[in-house]
């Protein structure tokens, strides 16, 4: 069986086992004559449970566009409606729809999936990497041709955060343009915290640099 499927089965099994153990735990304890819950459990219920849920909220916000104001606004809307109406479904729906609308209107930063429909080159201070191999700008064109990458394909040149001088990138861009790869663009990294060399994330949050038209891309001297 596929390793991924096994891993998914394992995750589901762990989820079931932990949840069932939590539910089963009180039934395994000996029945006391006094009955009722202990002081510890009531203390847990009062303090620890809200704290855990609060930490889960922080955790789940990390998957959102947390640098923009919209997830927080959506959160306020959710809490406000729930405090007023006490209808979980309605408040969840309202907050989610607001957040979806905010993203669809382009209010927050958009994620650009650079893994599927484009070819990636990684630009560092001293080298260019293609599929984790260091290559020279002159070789890039041959390699792209060798890989049968069509000239109409968008080529993202992902600029590492350490790169300050873009002249090397412009040289690469020029080489690509001359070879007919007119849809090459320089992409600067803004949000990814660890674009370590050789460990590119499958989906990263990049924002497009202001890209000149192919004609304007030509830099004097190249």
């Amino acid at each position, binding site marked *: 069986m596929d390793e*991924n*499927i096994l*891993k*998914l089965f*394992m*995750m*589901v*099994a*762990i*989820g*079931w086992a*932990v*949840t*069932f153990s*939590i*539910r*089963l*735990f*009180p*039934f395994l*304890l000996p*029945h006391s004559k006094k*009955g009722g*819950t202990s002081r510890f*459990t009531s203390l847990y*219920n*009062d303090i620890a*449970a*809200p704290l*855990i*849920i*609060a*930490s*889960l*909220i922080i955790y*789940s*916000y990390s*998957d*959102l566009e947390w640098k923009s104001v919209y*997830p927080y606004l*959506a*959160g306020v809307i*959710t*809490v406000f409606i*729930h*405090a007023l109406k006490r209808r*979980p*479904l309605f*408040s*969840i*729906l309202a*907050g*989610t729809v607001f*957040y*979806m*609308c*905010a*993203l*669809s209107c382009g209010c927050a930063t958009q994620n650009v999936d650079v893994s599927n429909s484009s070819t990636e080159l990684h630009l560092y201070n001293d080298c260019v990497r293609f599929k984790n191999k260091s290559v020279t700008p002159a070789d890039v064109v041959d390699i792209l041709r060798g890989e049968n990458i069509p000239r109409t394909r968008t080529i993202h040149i992902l600029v590492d955060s350490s790169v300050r001088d873009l002249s090397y990138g412009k040289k690469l861009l020029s080489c690509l343009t001359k070879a007919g790869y007119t849809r090459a663009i320089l992409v600067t990294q803004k949000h990814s915290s660890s674009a370590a060399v050789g460990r590119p994330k499958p989906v990263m949050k990049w924002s497009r640099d202001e890209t000149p038209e192919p004609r304007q891309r030509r830099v004097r001297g190249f």
Partner: protein
Amino acid sequence: MREFAVIKLEERRKIIRSAFVASLPVLAGYSTMGFAAGVLMAVKGSVAYPPLWAALIALSSVSGTLSFAMVPLMASGASALSTALLTLCVNFRYVFYGFSMRERWRGVPFFQKWFLIHSLADEIFALDLAHREEDPLKNRYYCLWNHFFNVVYWVFGTTTGAVVGAAFELPSKGIEFAMPALFLVILTDQVRDLLVRYRKGDKNG
């Protein structure tokens, strides 16, 4: 299930009907929430055959929060430890439901008890607790049907959501906010309960 034969057929039907009627408000909630969880699984779960996984998670955990929380875990291929820890954090509140029900379900046969404990989720617990029946046998019969109906709603909602999410291009951008929204709602309820209890405590001196 033979022990329920001592309850008259007419009464059994009445209990099943009352369990079904009581579960109808949950049907609206579970099917919609389950639908959202299923869509999220199909759109963001990054798994093949999302309806199968959605149904499996729904049936195995019978937990709305875990169904939502599982999506990013599955997408990122999280480790066993992080899955266990997150499940523990998300579902630890269930332990209090057990404390409330353990006296009521004392002496229940193994498989029935297993099913009752397995499906002891928020809304189901609330319905169990709200049902006042002196006869423990009738009470158990009600609880079993109540759990059964609600589990069916949850699995149906989740699977339908995953099927629709996988089949159609739904506007899914931002749907991941449903998970923090769910946590926010739970936290709001917890804080409100805490405040109510403290106010009552103040009044009682």
